[in-house]
Each structure stands twice: as structure tokens, then as C-alpha cells.
């Protein structure tokens, strides 16, 4: 290789390497801000600030959804299967909101540990299948749990 070209190649690769390191360090330092939400474990550990707008994300606990009879208000628990946080929300929930599904709730964490949400988003998972397949899977798992 021509020495001049070799030198230019090395310079180009060094530029890419140094910018990777720089951006890597920046994103590492900002990882708390890049995370879209706090997990219930982080909330339980006191890492989430109180009385400031935060997001909490996790699975809606099966059987935890309670709806008020006279208002839109809904209460449910969000879990990461280690800890859970109670969320209250007075508004219209997205169509894909359901027990056992992922959610991200934006709101304020009160001193009592309850998040008063101003927005609830459904977090869709990566599973895509036709209804018949989902039904078959459900039947198979039901049969499995009966045995």
C-alpha cells in the first residue's frame, strides 16, 4: 500500500475509533437519562425522585386492575417480578392495555409510593403471531399447567 494512503487510512480509522470512545463514554455517563423509565425495583430502592415527573415501566400485575365505578380512574400494580409499584390513572387507557402486558406510565411518585399518572402508554412486546397460533399456545400451556 502506498505510504500516503496507509497514513490516511490510519487517520480515518483513528477518527472513527476516537469518536466511538467519546460517544460511548457520553452515553455511559448519561445512561440514567437515556433509560425511558424507572423499573419498579429502582423505585423501591429510592432511585426515582419524589414529586417530579418520572416514568415507571413494567408488567401490569394479573388481577391488580381496579376501576372506579363512577369515574375513569384506574388503579393497577406494575411489576418487574421483583418489586411492584401502584399506579393510579384518571384517563383513557390505550387499547392494548391489559393485565400481564407491558406499560410505561408518566406521572409523579408520591411519598406514599403511589404513582399518579398523567399518561399511560402500552409497551408492545416483540411477539407477532396469528390468533389461531396464540389460541393453540394458550391451550397447550393450559394443558401443561393442569398436569
Amino acid at each position: 500500500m502506498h505510504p500516503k494512503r496507509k497514513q490516511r487510512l490510519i487517520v480515518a480509522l483513528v477518527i472513527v475509533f476516537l469518536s466511538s470512545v467519546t460517544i460511548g463514554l457520553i452515553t455511559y455517563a448519561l445512561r440514567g437519562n437515556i433509560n425511558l423509565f424507572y423499573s419498579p425495583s429502582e423505585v423501591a430502592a429510592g432511585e426515582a425522585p419524589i414529586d417530579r415527573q418520572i416514568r415507571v415501566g413494567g408488567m401490569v400485575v394479573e388481577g391488580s386492575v381496579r376501576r372506579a365505578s363512577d369515574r375513569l380512574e384506574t388503579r393497577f400494580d406494575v411489576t418487574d417480578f421483583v418489586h411492584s409499584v401502584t399506579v393510579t390513572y384518571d384517563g383513557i387507557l390505550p387499547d392494548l392495555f391489559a393485565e400481564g402486558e407491558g406499560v410505561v406510565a408518566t406521572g409523579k411518585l408520591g411519598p406514599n409510593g403511589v404513582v399518579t399518572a398523567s399518561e399511560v402508554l402500552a409497551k408492545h412486546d416483540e411477539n407477532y403471531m396469528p390468533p389461531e397460533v396464540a389460541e393453540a399456545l394458550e391451550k397447550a400451556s393450559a394443558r401443561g399447567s393442569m398436569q
Partner: protein
Amino acid sequence: MWRIIHQFGSPPWVYRFCDKVIPWLMPITIVALLGGSVWGLLFAPTDYKQGDSYRIIYIHVPAAVVALAGYYVMALAGLVSLVWRVKLADTAMRAAAPIGAAYTAIALITGAIWGKPTWGAWWVWDARITSMLILFFLYVGVIALFEAYENKTVAARACAILSLVGTVNIPIIYKSVDWWYSLHQPASIKFTGSSAIDASMLYPLLGMIITFYALFALLMMLNLKQSLTEEYAQSAWLNKRLAA
């Protein structure tokens, strides 16, 4: 081996190559686009949870995949232009930028349209969506930077450096859903192990991804031909070719 690589640096050879490939690549791509869309939008089964709104995947995912791959095409052309000073590499780098920007815009817009019924929001500043927006700005930045210089040799060098630095963003986009908590779900298609998407939905998706790659190649060649026609308007080889 070296001769083949050297041919790709020769404008008359590349021009002839494009002229040879385009007449059959264009009809194949159009048929595949139509066929893939009909397969995905009409014949693939509905999703058990999202119903029909998931069908935007057949545009969204192929556009996003090729937007990332296209960036490497642009950056690689930038590297060749920077190190070996091949003029054609400049042209290739500039040809890739607007196509990549369009693919990224399609991915962002279809994502927003899908996000509203699925998540309940058009836009969320999570790691995947934000890094994808940065990719869009990088593509647009390369276009703008090239136009900002009077001296086109300097412009090409600046663009090459910008596109090389921008490659850092590609693995970030790809891994963002695994590295950080995000609203966007992780990848459904897995290179190792079984995919999280049913085969009846996966095959039309893979077909559309391949088609979007073919479309990228086609647009790239059309763009290259256009640029070469402008750059070499006074050259004997081009005039002879156009007269024939």
C-alpha cells in the same frame, strides 16, 4: 481481483454497468414491491393482539433495516474517497445520502403511525426513536454539508469525515432496545434461535426486506447515472455513449 475493484473506480465502466443492470432490476423490483405489499397487506394473517395495524411492519421494518445498511454504504464510499481519493466514491457517497434520508423518514413516519394505536402516542423520546432521528439528521447533514462548500473537493472530504464519524450511531440504534429501557420492543427477527414472529408473517417480511435492498440498489444506480451525466457532460466517452 484488483482489476474488478479498479473497474468500480472507472466512471465509463460504472456507467455502462448501470445501463446494463437497470433494465432488468427495475421491473423485478417493481413486481416484488407490488407482490410483497399484496402478500403482507392482504394475505398475511392478522396479529392476535394488534389486529391489522401490525401490517405497517411490512414497510416500517424493511425501511429501517435498509436505512441502517445504507449508512454503511455511504460511510464506506466516504472512506474510499478519503483514503484512495477515488472521485467516483465521492459521487457514490452523495448518491446514497438522499436515499438513506428517505428510508429513515419512512421508518420514522410509519413508526409514528403505528405508535398511536399501539402505544397510545405518536412520538416518545426513547433511545431507539431518538437515535433513528439522529440518523436522519446525519443523512441530511451530509447533503447540507456538501452544498455548503464552494470547493467540491473540500466538501467531499468534510462529508466523508462526517459520515465516518456517524457510523458510531448505527450499532447504537441497533442495540438501543437492549442496552436501555425503551418503549420500542426488541427485534422480532433473530439471527440465532427462533424468531418471535410467526413464519406466516415472517416470510412476507423477509421478502419485503430483500425488495427494499433491491430498491436501494436501483435508486443508487439511477442516482449515480444522473450525477455522472452531469459531471462528465463534456467527456468524449459519455457523449459517444449517449449518441449510441
